[in-house]
Structures are given as C-alpha cells and as structure tokens.
C-alpha cells in the first residue's frame, strides 16, 4: 500500500515538468526551515564556499534516504565546477566531486 502511494507520487513527479518541480523546492525549503527541519542556506553556505574556495552556482533541495540534502554546484576561481552534497539539517558535507573528475 505504502509502496503504491510512493509509486503514485513518483509518477506524479515524473509527469510534472521538471522545471516546475525545481521551481517549488524553495517553498519546500522555506516550509522545512519553518518546521525546524533544516538550517537556513545562508548560514550553511559560507562554510561550504570557504571550504572549496568556490562561489555558488545553483542549489537544489532533495530528499535522499529520508533526509533533506542541499545539492550544490559551485565554481572555483580557476573555473572548476564542484558538486557538493550537504546535509541540510546539520550543514555537514556528505560528499563532493569535481564535475570533470
């Protein structure tokens, strides 16, 4: 039963235009922040930018393995693009990869 709901939800997600879904993630972020589930992006971001010496290009809020994560794309002054997965609740960097690795 639970499975079929999830499937249904995924089907809905797939059916909806990807852009529209992406457009709504900031509202989900706002709601999660108000519920206290995540820390504000502007608090987490400086640490991440400092750590990779890079500037934020784009952020998406995703739910992975039951927790909310920020999926960030950053660009270094040298022009390398870094993808970073950050735990939205703790601000810890979960994994990162240089896009051209």
């Amino acid at each position: 039963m639970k499975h079929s709901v999830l499937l249904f939800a995924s089907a809905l997600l797939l059916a909806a235009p990807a852009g529209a879904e992406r457009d709504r993630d900031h509202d989900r972020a706002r709601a999660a922040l108000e519920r206290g589930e995540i820390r504000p992006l502007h608090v987490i971001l400086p640490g991440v930018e400092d750590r990779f010496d890079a500037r934020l290009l784009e952020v998406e809020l995703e739910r992975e393995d039951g927790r909310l994560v920020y999926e960030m794309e950053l660009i270094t002054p040298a022009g390398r693009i870094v993808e970073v997965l950050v735990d939205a609740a703790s601000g810890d960097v979960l994994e990162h990869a240089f896009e051209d690795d």
Partner: protein
Amino acid sequence: MTRLSLRLRLALAGAVAVTLAIVVSSLGLAALFGAHVERRALAELSVQLDQVLAGVERGTDGALELATDPADPRFRRVYGGLYWQIAAEGQVLRSRSLWDYEIPLPADTLGDGAEHVHTLVGPVDQPLLAIERSVTLPARLGGGVMRAAVAMDRTALAVARADFLRDLAPYSAVLAAALIAAGWAQIAVGLRPLGAIRARVADIRSGRERRLGADFPAEVQPLAAEVDDLLAAREQEVERARTRAGDLAHGLKTPLQALMGEAGRLRAGGRGAAADAVEEIACAMRAHVDRELARTRVAMRGRQARADLADAVAGLLRVIRRTEDGARLDWRVDLPEGLIAAADSADLSEALGALIENAARHARSCVEIAGRPSGQQIEIVIRDDGPGIAPDRIEALMARGARADTRGSGLGLAIARDIVEALDGTLDLSAADPGLAALLTLPGADPS
C-alpha cells in the same frame, strides 16, 4: 629658524587647495554617478515589478500563484541578485532566488498604486534596494488587495560607484598634477619682479644704479620706495660724516703747518734734536690728514668716472722727468690703447703718481710701467730696478701709516693703497729681481 620661501608657501598652499578641490569634486562626481545608477536601477525594478504583477493568476487549487515567471534568470537562481515577493490573502509568494528567505517588508500602509522605495535586508544579510506597491486584483482573481515587491542587491550599485571612482582616479590625479604644475608656473611668473629687485640691489652695490626706481608692480613698489628712501637717508648721513671728516682734516692742516714752522724755529735756536722729533710727529700727523683728505675726495666722486690709463701715465711722466730722479732714469712704458679704469682721473693720477714717485726714488737706471686688461679688471705693474724691499718688510710697509724710511716714502704707498681700495681695486707689492714690483688692479670702466 628659516622661514619657508614664498615660492614654497604658495606652491604648498596651491597644491593643498588643488588636491582638496579634486578630491571633493571626484567624490561629488561619484555621488552623482551613484544617484544616476540608482535611478536606472529603480526604473528597471519598476519594469520587473510590472512583469511580476502581470503573471499573477489563481491556480487550480484556488490559491494565488505566479503563473508566468518573469523572464530574468536572476529571479530563478538561488541568491541570484534579483528578487520578488507577493503578500496576499495571508500567504506569501516568493521568487526562487530568495530560497528559504522571506523579505521582511516594512509595515507601512501603502497607498494604492504608489510605488515605495525601501532599503531592506536580503537573504544573505545584504542590503536590498526594493520597490513595493499595493495592487487591487481584478474581479476575476477575487478583487482582493496584494502587496508586491521586487528588489535587487544594493551591493552591485555600491560596486558600480566604487568602480567609477577607481576609473576616475587616474584622470583626477593627472588633472591635479597639471593644475599644480600650472600653479607653479604662475608662481614663477608672479615672483619674477622679486628677482628684478635683487638684480637692482646688486646694481646699486656695484654703483651702476643709485636707486631701485619706480618700475615695479604695485605690490612690490612700496618696498622699493622704502628702500630708496632708506638709501637716500643713508647717503645723506654718509655725506655729512665725510664732510665732517674732511673739515677735520682741513682744520688740522694749518696747525700742522704752524707746528712745522715751530720746529724750524727750534732748529734755528740750535735745538736740532727736538726739532727733528717735532717734525717727525708733525709729518706722521700730516700723513694721516693727507690720507683722510685723499679718501674723502675719492669718495665724493661718483663711480661713473672713467680715466684713460695711458693719458694719466703720460701726464705723470711729463712731471716726473723734470725732477732730479726722473731725469736720470730710463722710462719703459708698455700701455695698450683703450685701457679705461673706472676711476676719476685725478684719483688715478694720485695713486699712480705715488707709486711712480716711489719707483723713481729707488730705481737704479730704469722703471717699467706695463698694463693689460684682465677680464673686467685692469692690471698695471710698476717695477723699478732698485734695491727692493725684503718680503717680510713689505707687509709692515703696507700697514696703515707705515713708513719705509725716514724720508717718508712709505707714506706715498699707503696713500696709493687707500685710493686704490676706495676705487674697489687692490695694490700688491712684491719683490722683483731686482727691485720692487707694484701690482695694481683697478676695475675697468664699462665700455661705452
């Protein structure tokens, strides 16, 4: 403590003023530029706000939503720099660029339709330039009232202003340097009359001019007039002092003559030793009186005097050849034409006469008189072939009032030296082989 020169004072004051003016005007320009940039930004925000308002629709769930996102991609990128926010019916719609942040709109009541400009706090605590407007929805959308705002990072405006200032800086610096240089040139031109005064004072010292005169700028003229008055007063004082000295010398002449007469009476009375002593003292006193009279006479004459050396020597030789000493000697004269000394001819004759007379008295067979120009000066050498004077005695001989022998020949040399010095010349005696050489240097007259 030495005072700053006028030039430096003016230059420093000018440089400070120019620098201040340039700095202030640069800042003023930057402020103007900043205001202009902000006006442009507000105009753009106004366009964006219209676009946001145009996109408001009621969604399938009945809630208000922005059906059409504004075209600018900065609205969609997180912290993209351009933000919109709508508050209506208790819900808040936000651009994706705000992410999890909600702009705290001020709680003022907006008049319908009026655009309000605010500085608000942005998602990363940056200042935002925002315009906000209250709008009444059409009946199709329920007819309620909503507040819509669009905002942009103010930082960008500050950066633009700073960039402008930085771009302006080199031009401002060049302009300041050019103005300071121009100021320096102005000072140089303006202070030139002071240099003219210095030259004129030097002319007065050298006797080419007597007064500073009246052809100076109005600011300097009072100083020149004062100096001229001072010169006139000094001249009068010196004149009076000279007159008194001359009167004194004249006054002493007759008593001295009388004293000599008394000495003659002593001698006639058989007291030769006492007579000699009195005569010697009287001679020494007369020497002083004669020197003072000679000096007074020279000083009374101006410095514009000119005397032809060859003429003076020829006149003196005519006289000396009639004397016992002059007649027996061979006179060798080597004077080129056109040697003109800046001296009165009587003074020149007196000085040369004393030297020639001295040479005639001591020469064995001949006296040489030679002259030549030496730069601005004229050099004259008078040499005899007599016994000469030991070098250590020459100095004593030239001392004031000294005498080479009891016959009083040193007196002539001392008078000659006084006159020569009054004429701004020099007299040097040196031992020649054989005899004595007198080297006389006199200022040459300006060619005219």
